[in-house]
């Protein structure tokens, strides 16, 4: 789900095989090592945000745009307690919090 074109291809393949997708449930979340900021490699930070935030947004954008074009459909994003409060997960928490705001912002 990190690769834009692959996600679009998968969405098209599902549509051809099964028809339009009315429901999307996102649950992407790779956990991170619990490290203080000075020890948390940015490559790890990037990997976590890439899947948890970017990948989730991409799925919502691809499948949700098709739903919007058809005029119906629903998406449920599974969040985390770290979407709401501070935690020592400095990549996972902000990524999950951002997904929550996407969930509020994307519907139309």
């Amino acid at each position, binding site marked *: 789900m990190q690769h834009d074109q692959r996600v679009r291809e998968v969405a098209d393949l599902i549509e051809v095989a099964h028809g339009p997708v009315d429901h999307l*449930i996102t649950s992407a979340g790779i956990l991170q090592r619990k490290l203080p900021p000075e020890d948390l490699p940015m490559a790890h930070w990037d990997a976590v945000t890439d899947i948890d935030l970017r990948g989730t947004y991409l799925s919502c954008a691809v499948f949700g745009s098709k739903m919007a074009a058809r005029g119906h459909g*629903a998406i449920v994003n*599974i969040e985390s*307690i770290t979407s709401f409060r501070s935690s020592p997960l400095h990549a996972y928490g902000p990524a999950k919090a951002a997904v929550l705001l996407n969930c509020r912002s994307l519907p139309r």
Partner: protein
Amino acid sequence: MNRLVTPDEVADGIGFLLSDAVRAITGIVMPIDAGWFVWEYLG
């Protein structure tokens, strides 16, 4: 409730959010957490 939520309970909540019963609801955040948030607020 003093317990963790189960995967089945999360699935039931998702089923509710995808059902016709909530066709006029969108863009909401609904805790399915066996009361963890309430617990915090009420101490």
